[in-house]
């Protein structure tokens, strides 16, 4: 009894039939019953990832077995949940129809108990194996995406830091590139960009300036204007990068490599052919490079650099329109106009921790829409939906959310929470409090942090219910009485003492 007993949904309009099936199967399985097609569909929707097998009758009122199967196909459940049809039906065409709709097996009435049990066993075992394999793949993909995106980010940050820039530039380019690409795909099919490519191009965009590691410090970080000779050297970062990528012995045919090459080499080309290094013109310039080029210019204009102050969003758009900073593909200017309103807030609220998730969503999306290898993994979908749901709920709440894991001791705050409490979004809580003294927190924020820590370090015993604490926090500069609802999660391992793993909190301001 180590493992949970699999759950079987028995669908039959005849109470006796359901009772008989439960009777035969209930020693090894948990059974839920539905007495018509509609009820079955409701249960399927509610417990999609719990149900291991459906035993389905053919002739029923309120949607018959074939209708249930049709809907299971439409929702992609049929490839997740095996269905065995049990029926006294003998009409060849109907039985064939059931197979066509994806039933794993057809058992005719009257059935033999032993045969039924074995077919049920085998089917569940087979699907379980398949599912554990696809979960394994899923987890690996998620890990891999996260690691990939982390590596690329680390690499590009190193370059940015040498540039004396904050690293925000790379993140901005990423965001702008993504928004432009999405807009572009709505407007034209000309460039053959699919969802999967969008993720890859965004990742590649982070690398647009890695060639700058070949540029000497004196030139790269010179505060004044560059001499023509110096500028010639500076321009080399494009071809130098292309050379570096060429020298990488692996991944020659990978899309990421292809896009990175295009972007690195050609993001300073101009639509009118007067750019560098190759003087490409119009759509001779690969579209990925064109997009990163306009994103780069916009972000350079709106950011402060060692040689210039920051222009406003409006001024930057105006300058791009008037070809003051290069000449761009007219359709990309249209795209930039279309996203202009959303752009400012998107760049301000950029959430770094969501970047890897975003890449993951792209890959997930692409996988699920790939007709050659359809993956209708329900757990997968739910996983994605849960994440989206969390982001959404968080955005609609009035109060302040925090979450804390004990190993590593990291507290995460939503953007709103971080703003209101005056604390960073991610905080490593060191045991040694003396380290705190030199942080840049002001007194009010430091007090907030202390109070939250006190809540986190309360000595409690395992329980499943949330508890309530009254506490005053400094919110928007004012001392505000609050209710803090806290939920603690403990490990459930039966053999060991429970360990506190995480704490979730909701700070409700009393006004």
């Amino acid at each position, binding site marked *: 009894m180590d493992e949970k007993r699999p759950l079987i949904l028995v669908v039959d*309009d*005849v*109470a*006796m*039939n359901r*009772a*008989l099936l439960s*009777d035969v199967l209930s020693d090894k399985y948990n059974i839920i019953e539905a007495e018509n097609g509609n009820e079955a569909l409701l249960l399927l929707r509610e417990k999609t990832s719990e149900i291991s097998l459906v035993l389905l009758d053919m*002739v*029923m*009122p309120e949607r018959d077995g074939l209708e249930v199967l049709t809907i299971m196909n439409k929702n992609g459940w049929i490839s997740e949940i095996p269905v065995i049809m049990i*029926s*006294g*039906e*003998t*009409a060849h065409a109907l039985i064939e129809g059931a197979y066509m709709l994806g039933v794993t097996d057809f058992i005719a*009435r*009257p*059935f*033999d*108990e*032993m045969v039924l049990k074995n077919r049920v066993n085998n089917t569940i075992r087979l699907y379980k194996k398949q599912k554990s394999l696809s979960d394994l793949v899923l987890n690996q993909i998620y890990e891999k995406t996260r690691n990939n995106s982390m590596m690329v980010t680390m690499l590009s940050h190193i370059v940015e830091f040498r540039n004396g820039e904050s690293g925000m530039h790379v993140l901005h380019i990423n965001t702008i590139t993504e928004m432009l690409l999405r807009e572009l795909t709505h407007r034209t099919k000309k460039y053959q960009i699919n969802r999967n490519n969008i993720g890859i191009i965004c990742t590649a965009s982070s690398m647009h300036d890695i060639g700058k590691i070949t540029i000497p410090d004196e030139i790269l970080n010179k505060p004044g204007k560059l001499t023509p000779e110096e500028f010639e050297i500076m321009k080399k970062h494009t071809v130098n990068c292309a050379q570096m990528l060429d020298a990488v012995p692996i991944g020659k045919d990978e899309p990421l490599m292809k896009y990175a090459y295009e972007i690195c080499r050609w993001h300073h080309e101009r639509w009118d052919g007067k750019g560098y290094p190759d003087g490409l013109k119009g759509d001779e310039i690969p579209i990925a490079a064109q997009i990163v080029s306009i994103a780069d210019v916009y972000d350079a204009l709106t950011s402060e650099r060692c040689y210039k102050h920051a222009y406003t969003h409006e001024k930057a758009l105006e300058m791009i329109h008037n070809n003051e900073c290069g000449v761009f593909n007219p359709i990309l200017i249209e795209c930039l106009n279309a996203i202009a309103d959303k752009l400012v807030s998107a760049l301000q609220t950029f959430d770094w921790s969501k970047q890897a998730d975003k890449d993951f969503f792209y890959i997930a999306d692409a996988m699920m829409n790939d007709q050659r290898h359809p993956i209708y993994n329900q757990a997968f979908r739910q996983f994605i939906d849960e994440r989206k749901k969390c982001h959404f709920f968080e955005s609609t709440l009035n109060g302040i959310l925090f979450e804390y894991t004990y190993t590593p001791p990291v507290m995460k705050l939503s953007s709103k929470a971080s703003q209101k409490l005056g604390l960073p979004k991610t905080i490593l809580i060191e045991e040694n409090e003396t380290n705190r003294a030199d942080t840049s927190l002001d007194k009010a924020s430091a007090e907030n942090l202390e109070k939250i820590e006190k809540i986190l370090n309360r000595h409690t015993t395992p329980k499943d219910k949330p508890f309530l604490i009254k506490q005053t926090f400094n919110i928007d500069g004012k001392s505000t009485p609050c209710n803090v609802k806290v939920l603690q999660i403990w490990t459930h391992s039966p053999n060991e003492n429970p360990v506190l793993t995480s704490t979730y909190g909701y700070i409700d301001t009393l006004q």
Partner: protein
Amino acid sequence: MTLSEFYSTLGESLDEVLVRLRMESRIAKYLGLFLSDPSFSELKTAFASNDAKTAFRAAHTLKGVAANLGLNKLSATSSELTEDLRPGAFTANSQALFEKVEHDYNAAVTGIKQLDG
């Protein structure tokens, strides 16, 4: 009357059902439940109210339930009626086929009521 006697009276075989359902107690339990299964009365009502669709479904159900319990005659006559009604309308034969079903159903019910325990 024992289970074995019950089946022989109806011209059926207990052994055939035992092979499939394993336990005499289980068979007895479901024969008992058969008395409260509404399929036959639904069939009758459907005939009375000229509802061929419901009649088809009820006959279909009766056929399956009877087959599971080894009431093969009832299953066979229900099956004939099912096929007769499949197109969704009563035919010239429907009433006669229904009467055969009714006969077999009543025979089974009478027998079940006389079972020991």
